Structures are given as C-alpha cells and as structure tokens.
C-alpha cells in the first residue's frame, strides 16, 4: 500500500519538556487512522508538525513521498491544496458567510468563475448535509454540529487527498456525532480520502477508524482496534478496558 504520510524519528521538545521522542507513524492511502492519547500527550503537536505549523526539533516528515522540510514556498502551496483540515471548533471565519467560507479556498487557489465557485461551494454545503437556506448565515448563527459540517465542507473545497480532523465530534450530541461519523465514512468512499482523526470519542474510534494510533511514552503505537485491545501496556489497557469502552462493546454485541 502507498504511504501518504510517513513520520520518522520525530522529536519535539518545549524547553526541557520532551513531547515526542523518536516518534514513528504512517498513514496509508484510503485509510482512516484514529489518533488517540491522554490530554497533553502531544496529539495536537504532532498534527501541527505534520501541517508545518510547527518546526519539529528533529525528525523527518514525508507527505506523498516528499520530505516537507525542504519545500520552497511554491511547493508548500501545492502541498497545501492536497490536504484539508477541520479544526476543533470549526475555525470558520466569522466575517464571512457560510457560503463564502467554503468558497474561500476556491477563490484563493483557483481562477474559476464566480458562478462556478458559488455552485461548487453550494454543492459542498449540501454534500455535508446542510440546507441551501443556511448558505447566507454567518458562522455565529450556526449550531456546533452545523459549524463542524461547514468546516468539513471548507476543508473539502479543493477535493483534497488527505483530511485532518481535530476532535470532530467533541461537544456534539450523540445523534450529530454518529451522523458526522457516517458522513466521514461516505465521503471517504466517494472521494478516496485518507483521513487522520484526533479523537477522544470511543464511538468514532470503533465505527470509523481502520487503524488506531496511540501516543504513549512519547511514541506512537499503531494497530487495529482488536490488536490494541490485546495490548499489555498499562495505559492502553486502562484506555480500552475502562467502563466507557465496556459499554460500547456491550452495545456492539447487542
């Protein structure tokens, strides 16, 4: 299988505090990886390193076979068109309407006509399950779940190959959360996406993710959910055999 993202020997330190110490991780084409770890274990730092928002202390990151350290500005722009990022609370631009938020990447990265930008943005809006009449609302008028969907539509505006989701279901009610999970699965099927999801939501982990990557002891351990459940590691054990996980397993069995 083709490796889309490959992180090797990543080290991230903040002063004397080491967050990542020789971390290795990879994302294959068309797969969904769930990235989990305790609070403060460096999930967001890993994401920021991959996105180039933070320069890692040492280590290499390759995206689509190209090491991102030595890209020039033009190559960065080309790379940035290949991914979409959904931030924790949507990070929608509050000064723009929903439709303009989705249309922004199209307007900035392509030279297509205004009419087609509107059509395409409108299509993406409906694709993520919003109604046409939501198009002119401002982000502050949207509910949490809707804002997350608009953020997803904006991330998908340029038809990226890789999608990063930072806690997409946190703070959503269970119905919206599971609807969001299904949306991600159907989008992956239609658009050939490779996805990294940072999540604390065990339901998402069970229903959506092909593989699980866990940050423990400043490194990443990956495997399928079943493999992870067999793990002897203390933290992983308590993560997957806690009361919340038991409830989900029972629900699945029923």
């Amino acid at each position, binding site marked *: 299988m083709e490796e889309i993202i490959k992180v090797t020997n990543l080290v991230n330190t903040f002063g004397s505090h080491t967050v990542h110490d020789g971390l290795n991780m990879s994302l294959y084409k068309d797969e969904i990886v769930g990235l989990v770890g305790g609070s403060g274990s460096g999930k967001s730092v890993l994401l920021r390193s991959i996105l180039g928002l933070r320069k890692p202390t040492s280590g290499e990151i390759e995206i689509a076979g190209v090491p991102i350290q030595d890209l020039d500005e033009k190559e960065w722009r080309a790379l940035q068109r290949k991914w979409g990022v959904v931030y924790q609370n949507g990070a929608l631009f509050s000064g723009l309407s929903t439709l303009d938020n989705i249309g922004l990447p199209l307007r900035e990265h*392509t030279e297509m006509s205004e009419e*087609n930008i509107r059509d*395409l943005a409108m*299509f993406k809006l*409906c694709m993520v399950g919003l109604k*046409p009449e939501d198009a002119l609302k401002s*982000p502050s008028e949207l509910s949490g779940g809707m804002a997350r969907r608009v953020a997803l539509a904006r991330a998908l505006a340029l038809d990226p190959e890789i999608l990063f989701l930072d806690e997409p279901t946190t703070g959503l009610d269970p119905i919206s959360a599971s609807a969001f999970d299904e949306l991600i699965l159907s989008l992956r099927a*239609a658009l050939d996406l490779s996805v990294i999801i940072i999540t604390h939501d065990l339901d998402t982990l069970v229903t959506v993710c092909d593989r699980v990557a866990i940050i423990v002891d400043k490194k990443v351990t990956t495997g399928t959910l079943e493999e992870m459940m067999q793990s002897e590691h203390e933290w992983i054990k308590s993560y997957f055999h806690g009361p919340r996980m038991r409830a989900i397993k029972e629900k699945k069995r029923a």
Partner: protein
Amino acid sequence: MGAAIAVSEKKYLDVLGGEAGSVLALQGAWVVLNVAEIEKDIAQQKPETLKARGVDLGGITRIDTAGALLIRKYFPDAKLALSDQQKKLFEFLPEKSPSAPLEPKGNLKTLLTHVGKNVSEALMFLFEIIAFTGEVATKLGGCILHPGRFRFAAIVRHIDETGIRALPIIGLLGFLMSMVVSYQAAIQLQKFGASIFTIDLTVISLLREMGVLITAIMVAGRSGSAFAAEIGVMKLREEVDALRTMGLDPIETLVLPRVLALLITLPLLAFFANMLGLVGGAIMSQVLLDIPLTQYIARVEYAATPTILFVGMVKAPIFAFLIAIVCTYQGMHVTGSAESVGRLTTVAVVQSIFIVLAADALFSIIFANMGI
C-alpha cells in the same frame, strides 16, 4: 510536487466528427485546479456543439467533484459512459445541484426599512443607556450603603491601567498641544503688537477647554476601547453568565469598578495635562516671545483665575462618567462572534467621543448663560 499538479494537456474538450450530433470527447484532468481552463475551453465552443448527444469520458485521466459538477452543469442531458470509479462519484452528486440563494437586492423598500430600523435602534439605545445608567446608579447606591461590597482591588487595578499608565501619553499631548496653540497665537498677535496676550490665550484655552477635552478624547480611545473589549470578550466566553450564576452581579463586579476608577483618574489626568501644558507654554514664550520665566508666571497668575480652572475641571468627572458608561454598556451588549467585539468597541469609542463633545458644547452654553 508542483509538477504532479500542473497538467500537461492543454485541451480538455474535443469535438469528434465535426458535424452536429457529434460526440464530445472530454480529456485530461477534470479537477478543481483546472476548472478555470476548462471554463475557457467550453466558452470557445459554439452553444449548439455543446448540445451534442454523446459525451465520451474515456479520455479523462482524473476527475473530482468539481469536474463532475461541471459535466452535470454543461452536459445535463448527455448520456455518460462512465467507469466504475466515476459512477461512484456521480452517484454522490445530487441530481440537480441547488443554486445558491442570492443576497437580497436593495430597492426603495429595503432602504426605507433600513432607515426605520436605524432610527428605532437609535431610540432604543437612548432608552437602554438611560436604563443602564440607572442600574449602575442603584448598584452604586447599594455599595455606598454597604461599603464592603466595593471591589477595591479591582478599582485600584483600573486606576493603575487607566490612570498611571496613561500619564506619559497624556502629559506629552498636553505639552505639545499648548506649544502648538501658543505658537499660532504668537504669530497672529504679533501683528497687533499684543504678543503678551499669547500667554493669556494659551492659558485660558488650555485650562478652560483644551486640557480636559483632549484628555477625555485620549481616555475614550485608550481606556474606553479597553473597557468595551475586555467586557465584550468576557461576555463572549460566557464569563459574564458564569458570574451571574454564581450570584455575582456583573454590573457590580465589572462595570462599577471601571466607572469609579475613571471618575478618579480622568480629573487627575486632566489636571496633569494642564500642568504640562503650562510648562509647554513657558518654553514657547521663552523661545518665541523672549518672555522670561518670572514674567510668564506672573502673567499666568493674572490670566488663570480660579474660576477658569474650576470651569475646566468640573467637566472632567462628567466626561469620565459618560465615557465609562457608554463603553461598558457596549461591552455588555456583545453577542455572537468575535467580529461583534471589534464592531462594538469601535462604536463605543466613537459614541463616547461624540457624547463628550456634545456635553462640552452644552457646558459652554450653560457657562455662557451663567456669565462665567
């Protein structure tokens, strides 16, 4: 990386057969980054060619939702010969993509509605600000009856922020302004041989009007905006609601300390600006008019009667109260997004400066009628 995205094919559309009823062959990468060029290719074709019955997608190397949407849009009736992967993408597209709702266009009716709305909002603002003032006053009354409820730590912090930290800029402003005024006055009065009155003019205009006015405007821009933004952000992050649910009154905890702090600092700042203004005047008279310092002091003593200083200083606490009330009121009315904080902060500063100037005009009329 760049090479992988830039596609070598120049043409995305080819007409096979040449006659009407021909087959359109679509080729190349119909992806979002090429849409602009595809649009150009399509625009070059005659409309009747585009109505061709057959559309062949065989030549398409890559396609994404943008490309699929274009095909749906420009060839709605065409029978498509699709590969499995393309089928999956097209099934995902809605049969007919909804058109974007248009932003409402303006006409006479919307204009009138807009005007009416603004007028009623202005009236509402007037009512609400009076109600807000009343609320602050009752809370102040409550605090005076129970002095333990005053938040001295908060008041001291705001005195530091709005007063002590503002000293350098306010001082500089008073100093420079009186220099400018006396310079202009000296040039004009020299023509009449009345140079000595430069000092009278500078001192009176400084102490009566300019000192306190310039201080108030500066404070509105500097501290008033901070009041509105601080309270606005707290409102946005539900900190104000948190205070309320804990049984604390936001007017008492947030608004009152700021109002009281400004009531203390603005008069002091105005006095400070006056004093530095006198220093500036002294320097200018020394340089421009060759008036020695002792004569300058004597002239100031003659011109600056206690009434003049009093007329200036009495306005300071009023201005302070107006600025603090307007700015904290706007802060408390932030709703929704971060944009609202920016907008209402601007509104707060503009309104408070306007109200200060209006109040100043009112004072002038009152003092004129009193014959002061």
